């Protein structure tokens, strides 16, 4: 007899945003992302509490990726940030901080949520229109004839993750590698069939970061004992190598028959039958003068032996990740069956050699195309290698975004402070007709605008973790970090602002960032362009990623403010 259990009724919670537990959870979330932010941020050890791997990180993708949440509102928040990270890689923490701050302040306002949503939307428009306008004084146009901005931006990204444990010198070294690989994979001429190349990352734990290297082509790790077993007696093929690439397993197992059973006559050895097939395939390879055979999966030892005796280098277990780059790099088509393959499937390589990094041995495949290159990343232990890899991938992705949108924003908190100053000034003079369209009064608009600006300023202030004070100047609205208990008058002359654009002499007056100040109009682009050209190094952020992060944060806030009921299926 079956037991039927009655379905429980769904649970509906009205006005979930007012609950104390949600506010508390939001605060915890805010504290968590805020404490990770920036080059001096703190690290989090993420693990599952039952002996799983521990990830020590301050990188948004690793931090939020592993998080499991109980409250639906938090789930919405984290989901939209994760979505942002998956498309833009950078500015994930910034988006989370901005969103948490905006939400926290908006929830305190005595306004209806619809009004708040409308006003924040209009403020978002003001903000993004400004950032995209020609007048914007906090952005830099990337000049691709010079690697300076590219290097600056890469350096800013790499330096912002303390778990990489890099010194300035090491940051410079790795930035150079990344920019090099970026320039390497951009096609030299444009055309319809031209695609952006790709960078592969090889990580080695143990050696110092300075031993990281840039290598054109691809590296395949080979264990030291398999070298002699791999290499034909004639040595590796030297130049203009024909290559065959197999995606099908050549390990000689009988193909999966699904649920059905296969009946074999006694005395027939299916394994031997398949092996004979493989040897026929091997013979074809030898006849076609293939010099290297790469297989995504396993190659049968007998086939390996057969190929080796005939001077063909056979490498197996290269993994799915390398298949696409190999296709791109050599022009080879992955062969997916044991049937004779047309010779057009074969690819070509310029050269094959043996290299070693750290205490590992690699087969180095040098292509004719420059599209694929590898970066060998070294760091002392697994934790820092992993964080370095994540950070480098972010930097690489951000560089790719530059091709589409060649702009960079001033980093180090300056953009946030500057945008806040701009919006404060702008919201002073809103046209009454516009207010009518929004359906709010001038004071209501001012309240929300203040919230909006405070959230930006709070995001900038999140860069400080050691008790220092953050000031802003009343000329350009930049970010100035000063020791605790020092006011604007005693700022050291050595001081520069967060993005290194301004020196002390450039700004006349300071006030504590986040404190109320008389709104002013920040200087526009033409007034500071001379400064931009003169500066040696700047701290720079991705323009595309930051703009999207702002949009995601404000939209998510709107979405969450709009939640009236939470309906939960209890079954």
């Amino acid at each position, binding site marked *: 007899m079956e037991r039927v259990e009655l379905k429980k009724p769904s649970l509906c919670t009205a006005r979930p945003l007012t609950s104390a537990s949600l506010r508390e959870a939001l*605060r915890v979330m805010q504290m968590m992302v805020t404490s990770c932010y920036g080059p001096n941020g703190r690290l*989090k050890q993420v*693990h599952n*509490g039952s002996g799983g791997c521990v990830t020590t990180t301050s990188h948004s993708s690793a931090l939020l990726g592993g*998080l499991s949440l109980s409250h639906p509102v938090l789930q919405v928040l984290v989901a939209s940030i994760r979505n942002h990270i998956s498309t833009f890689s950078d500015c994930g923490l910034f988006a989370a901080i901005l969103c948490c701050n905006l939400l926290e302040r908006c929830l305190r306002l005595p306004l209806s949520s619809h009004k708040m949503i409308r006003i924040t939307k209009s403020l978002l428009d003001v903000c993004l229109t400004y950032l995209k306008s020609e007048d914007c004084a906090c952005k830099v146009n990337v000049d691709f004839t010079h690697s300076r901005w590219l290097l600056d931006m890469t350096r800013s990204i790499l330096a912002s993750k303390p778990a990489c444990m890099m010194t300035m010198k090491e940051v410079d070294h790795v930035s150079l590698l990344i920019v090099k690989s970026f320039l390497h994979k951009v096609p030299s001429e444009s055309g319809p069939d031209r695609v952006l190349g790709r960078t592969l990352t090889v990580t080695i734990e143990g050696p110092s970061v300075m031993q990281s290297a840039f290598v054109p082509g691809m590296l395949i790790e080979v264990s030291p004992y398999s070298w002699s077993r791999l290499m034909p007696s004639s040595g590796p093929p030297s130049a203009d190598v024909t290559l065959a690439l197999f995606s099908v397993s050549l390990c000689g197992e009988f193909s999966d028959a699904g649920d059905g059973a296969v009946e074999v006559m*006694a005395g027939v050895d299916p394994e031997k039958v398949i092996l004979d097939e493989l040897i026929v395939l091997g013979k074809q390879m030898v006849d076609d003068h293939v010099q290297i055979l790469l297989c995504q999966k396993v190659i049968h030892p007998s086939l390996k032996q057969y190929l080796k005796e005939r001077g063909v280098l056979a490498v197996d277990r290269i993994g799915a990740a390398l298949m696409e780059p190999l296709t791109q790099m050599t022009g080879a088509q992955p062969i997916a069956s044991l049937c004779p393959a047309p010779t057009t499937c074969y690819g070509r390589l310029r050269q094959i050699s043996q290299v070693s990094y750290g205490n590992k041995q690699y087969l180095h495949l040098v292509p004719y195309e420059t599209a694929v290159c590898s970066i060998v990343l070294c760091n002392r232990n697994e934790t820092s290698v992993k964080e370095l890899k994540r950070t480098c991938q972010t930097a690489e992705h951000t560089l790719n975004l530059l091709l589409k949108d060649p702009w960079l924003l001033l*980093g180090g908190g300056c953009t946030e402070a500057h945008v806040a100053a701009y919006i404060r000034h702008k919201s002073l003079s809103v046209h009454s007709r516009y207010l009518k369209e929004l359906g709010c009064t001038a004071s209501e608009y001012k309240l929300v605008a203040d919230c909006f600006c405070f959230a930006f300023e709070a995001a900038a202030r999140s860069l400080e973790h050691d008790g220092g004070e953050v000031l802003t100047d009343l000329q350009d609205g930049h970010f100035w970090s000063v020791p605790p208990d020092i006011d604007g008058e005693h700022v050291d002359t050595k001081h520069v602002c967060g993005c290194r654009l301004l020196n002390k002499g450039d700004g006349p007056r300071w006030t504590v960032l986040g404190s109320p100040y008389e709104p002013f109009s920040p200087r526009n682009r033409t007034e500071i362009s001379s400064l931009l050209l003169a500066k040696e190094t700047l701290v720079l952020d991705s323009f595309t990623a930051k703009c999207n992060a702002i949009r995601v944060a404000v939209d998510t806030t709107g979405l969450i403010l709009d939640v009236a009921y939470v309906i939960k299926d209890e079954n």
Partner: protein
Amino acid sequence: MVITNQDAVSSSAYRQHYCRNTGSKLCDGSHDNGVTVLQTTVPTVSPCRGDRTVMSAIKLGGHLGLIELFNISSSVKTFLGPQKSYKFIYDQDTQESTLICSPFRLLESLDLSSAVGQLFNETIQAHHKVYKTGTTTLFFLVGVWSKAVLECLHHGVPVSLIVSGMQEGLNSCIEHVEALHIPLYNILGTKQNSFHRVSVVDGGSDNVSKTKSSNFSSSRDGNFGLECLGHIPKTLKYVQTTPPSKGNLHSQGSHMNKLSRSRHFSMPKTSSFQNSSQISSHSLEDLTQSLSHGNSEAMELVEKAGTLLHETAHELFVTKDLFQASRLNICFLRGVPEVISSVSFGYVTLLKQEYATVVRNLEGKPLKILLLDGDLTEIYRHLGFNKSANLKSVSGFGVNERRTWEDTWISTACQRIVEANINLILVRGDACPQLIMQCLNQNTLIITHVKPNILQAFSDCTGAEPVTYLTQISHYSIGCEVIAKLCPQWSPESSQTIAVNFHAHNINLVTVLVSCRLLPKMQIIEDQFWACTHRLHNALLDQKVFPGGGAVELFCLHYLRKLEGNLVNGGPHFCTPSWLSYSMVHYKSSIYQCLAKGWILYISTLLFNMGEYASEFEAMTFIQKELQNIGTSSSPSSYVFNEYSKKVELIDDEKLQMHHRKVTVYDDVNPKVEAWRSALHLVLTVLQSDAEIITGSTQKQVIEGESSSGNYVFL
């Protein structure tokens, strides 16, 4: 697990004890920035109501991680220095106990399941994987630096400044101790002489002058050694015959370059002075004893093995290739009353008594060998092969199919082996027992569980390629001319096993036979042997050594003190401008003191363990005195060189009395420096971590239980 040693503490009780301690400590030390900020700003959320299934918990640990690191690593104290005390590890679950004497073994027995414990384990494993030595230093420094950093935090130094300040300090120390590098070619016959040479070289002097004096001294001392010490082996030969004059240094350099290239495949890397790294075999002996670090017996074996590997070579060069750990094998003769320790070419292994007759039959004859890289069983398939589960064999008489299949396989296998005329099969994995017995009847030996490096050595010298299946047998895979010999040191009457040596022409594999009276010590002897092997290996790889016995650390202490004396605000410490860069100068001296504290504790523990001083306090007084002496000396590096070559001799004197030889203690360069770096790296990573995030809900109960203490918040 319970660890019992002099300190007699159980690891779990240990941790609990400390955790309680730290709890109160954190409450007292409310001026501690990091902790209070987190604890006051975040009120604890009471743990969830019943029905939540998925959630994350955040543990706000403050700097508990550093305390944990300190606790973990304090157990390694007695392993520091040449005179180690053993630890007895008792497993309460299995009632088994083991004797250990290395930090690496200790690590295997510690409970390191916590987040910080895992990081710690990861760091030590990474270091051990690369260097196989220097883990004690790493283990110990992690603890003392954690403690020092905690003190630094109590003085109110911002976390970010500690991180960049300590990194900077360590890097500049490591740059500075380059002055103490002793190139291997300087360690020639009479070391006193070469020491005086080197002591001329100071950190300030540039590379060229270093090259000059080193080159000069190496040749001079080389000849000096030849004249004075009559017992040079006949194999000894110097490439360099005429002493170079200082004038034509460059031509000399290129000349040497050519010479060594003609004799060697491997070229020393960059600078020309590395090429003159040929030393005689008696100096290798000196080097090995200097690197023995209290395990002179184990090191003697290593050295014998090293010399044996090059017995046939006409000339001996101390290059990177001279000595590789993969060419050594160790074989234990259990329960032998007398001390046997010998070294012989080839692969020695213990076989069961049943093999004795076959071995006697084969003894002295050239054997054909097959190398199998896998198991020798019917069911074995290469890695990655999945046997299809739904294959059904259809046959008329399906009686006991499994049985017949295996029997057929065995008879075919046996036939194949006999047909190929193979007498010896080395198998990396397991082998089918029936097949082994059948083969024994056919006068064929099958030896299982052979290490990959041994297979490789036989493959190298006989040209036999290892195969996976017997079906692969071809003329490429069969090696010839392997000779089996019963080891005379091991009389078959006394035991159930026999020791057999397999040898082939030009084999570059040496087996060290060690008898062991105390079975529990076997593991320790083996560990010591490999530690010595890798210490020598690393020294040869680096082509340079440090003076040992705390000299390098003392030199660092002196240097840090000098840095503290003239603090300047160096270049930018941070990529993004921050007030921290400008405030660095105010905190630098406490940060440097923090760094120094680690080394002071290291040296004092070392000296105390060596029995030089009755207490660590006395040792510290000595360190202060030495630091003053170095400070007043005109050339600190030469002072350290001269004093420490003398001083350490005295210490070792009583140990090595039977040899009537005075030995200076040396230490590896890269493993030591990297151990420092890794230790600091770990401490700083943990310092920067302020919270632990536990994802999922698998251990909700445990967390809830603990959360009453207020450490957890839930999301």
